């Protein structure tokens, strides 16, 4: 999926650049697919929960826990299947499969990385995490510590890639912006120009 750049300027002194490799979903069929995907994820998650509860139905809680009529559930068709699965397979297998399904359900299909520039304050980089459960990793660098923002090249795997980096005062390593996606040079140049303009040029 090609990387896309989204520039937002909520105020004249603030710019946010977001690079994402998510697909656009502009056509109706793509939107329908997204809805289906969400429903699928919810269903899978409930299934895992159900099997889990079925496994523990004798031990942990009584008949009326969580204000649910568990007996009614277990006697329904889906409940019966869940109970059968929970009883026939051993615990380790169920735990493993559930863990995998949960990982799949919460896995984010795309990466989104952003750079937020606020004049006079600093810049914040953020990288979305791989799952929906954890938060994005962010890093804030105050203006006083920013020495420069540069585009350079480096070896990455079998390739030479461009990257945008912030040189931070007092640190031996630079902070790479968009470290996972490493977008194309064209995008980087736009971000570089925009961020420099926002940080420095308006001042002089």
């Amino acid at each position, binding site marked *: 999926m090609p990387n896309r750049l989204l520039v937002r300027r909520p105020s004249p002194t603030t710019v946010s650049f977001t690079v994402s490799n998510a697909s656009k979903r502009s056509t109706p069929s793509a939107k329908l697919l997204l809805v289906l995907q969400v429903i699928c994820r919810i269903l899978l998650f409930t299934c895992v929960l159900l099997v889990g509860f079925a496994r523990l139905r004798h031990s942990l809680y009584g008949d009326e826990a969580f204000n649910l009529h568990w007996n009614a559930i277990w006697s329904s068709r889906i409940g019966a299947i869940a109970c059968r699965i929970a009883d026939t397979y051993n615990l380790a297998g169920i735990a493993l499969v559930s863990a995998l399904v949960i990982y799949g359900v919460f896995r984010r299909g795309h990466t989104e990385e952003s750079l937020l520039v606020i004049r006079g304050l600093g810049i914040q980089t953020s990288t979305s995490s791989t799952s929906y459960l954890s938060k994005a990793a962010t890093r804030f660098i105050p203006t006083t510590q920013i020495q*420069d923002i*540069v*585009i*350079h*090249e*480096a*070896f990455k795997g*079998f*390739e*030479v*890639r*461009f990257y945008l980096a912030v040189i931070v005062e007092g640190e031996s390593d630079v902070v790479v912006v968009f470290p996972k996606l490493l977008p*194309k*040079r064209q995008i*980087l*140049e736009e971000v*570089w*120009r925009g961020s420099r303009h926002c940080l420095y040029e308006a001042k002089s």
Partner: protein
Amino acid sequence: MISDYFFPQPAGGVESHIYQLSTKLIDRGHKVIIITHQYEGRTGVRYLTNGLKVYHVPFFVIYRETTMPTVFSFFPIFRNIVIREQIQIVHGHASLSSFCIEGILHARTMGLRTVFTDHSLFGFADAASILTNKLLKFCLSDVDHVICVSHTCKENTVLRASLDPLMVSVIPNAVVAENFQPLSYTPHSNYRVPGVPPDRRAVPPQIGPDDTITIVVISRLFYNKGTDLLIAAIPRILASHRNVRFVIAGSGPKAIDLEQMLERNVLQDKVEMLGSVRHEEVRDVMVRGQIYLHPSLTEAFGTVIVEAASCGLYVVCTRVGGIPEVLPQHMTTFAKPEEDDIVIATGKAIAALRSNKVRTDRFHDQVKMMYSWTDVAERTERVYKGICGDISQEEFYGRYYGQAWKASEDRVRSFALIDRLKRYYGCGVWAGKLFCLCVVIDYLIYVVLEMWFPRAKIDIARSWPKKLHSSGDKRFSISSRGHDRQNSGSSHH
């Protein structure tokens, strides 16, 4: 430019050759990048003066700064660099560099023109040479053009790789004469002043019969640089001549032997050992002496003796390899590469200096006229144009009326795989088949790479802007102003 040997390793002929040639080619309007392997603390992409871009590719180093020969593993990254920099000509340097040999192989697979510069001489007899020669043959059987630094080197390379001699050009090394000026040098313009004969100039300081003469030796102390000869000759020279001192700069495995010899003969007060010196300091060491002694056993060109002559030193050197071609008779005394002869030759040189027969003060201007990098760059550029077809075949290779012209068709190396295989197959009974196998695998890898990392997805790097505005922020100019892109690749059309 591609080679294993490049700065920041202590400079030898190859490194400075690559650097100077690249700089001059950039001045002539080409785009040049250098690919070399990583050095301690230096990996990645770097810019040198004038926008010369150096790729320090992370690879293992096994022996004397040479990378592991891993035939194919370098290909993906090489292809990436070549595409993103829009390279048209790949120019490899130094035959022992596996980077260079692999680079040329891959470049041919990718359909690029290749040039190879040989900087060294090899024997034919021992096992290592046979292996190296086979490798060289492999590399050169498909190269477009070869450049050698001296005629001896050309002869050697033609024999080793069984090449068509017309495909080999001789372009010598050069020196930056400004960096190697004698101690008391004033740039005079006696050639322009009419009526004043050159001899009217201030007579140089005369050397009296009892003045101390210092002999300078600057070389890496390896076997092939003749350090053993030096060790044998020094005590004899010092014994037969009073008022002679030695200054030896350089380091290497033979340094211990040299020191042992000094201790054995108690010559520490007459011989000064400086250890390794940086290339910028070479001149300062050279001007301390009057004679430069070069005992090398094998040398393709010997840039250092040109530098020495440029500093106004009288040169005593061995008559090996390409050395006799380098300097005119009046600047040098030649010796056979053996102990007795070196002692005799040095004696002669000392006598000649003491009798003030040698005008060493004029050496600098003469060397300046003979060797310049601009000239080297011009001649290299002509080779590039020749292989790209900018210069017609007849003009580039010379017209030979007696010769049937069809013989030359082989000189234009077609990129078709079957033609390449034919050329490689001729390399030897077993080697030919092995080389063919390598080429076929290389080609398959290329096809896979084209599918895996499509060309269209590789970012094209911006060229260094041609005219630098004031001194502005260096980084700023890398990425913000790269508008002139017409000079892509190494060649200018």
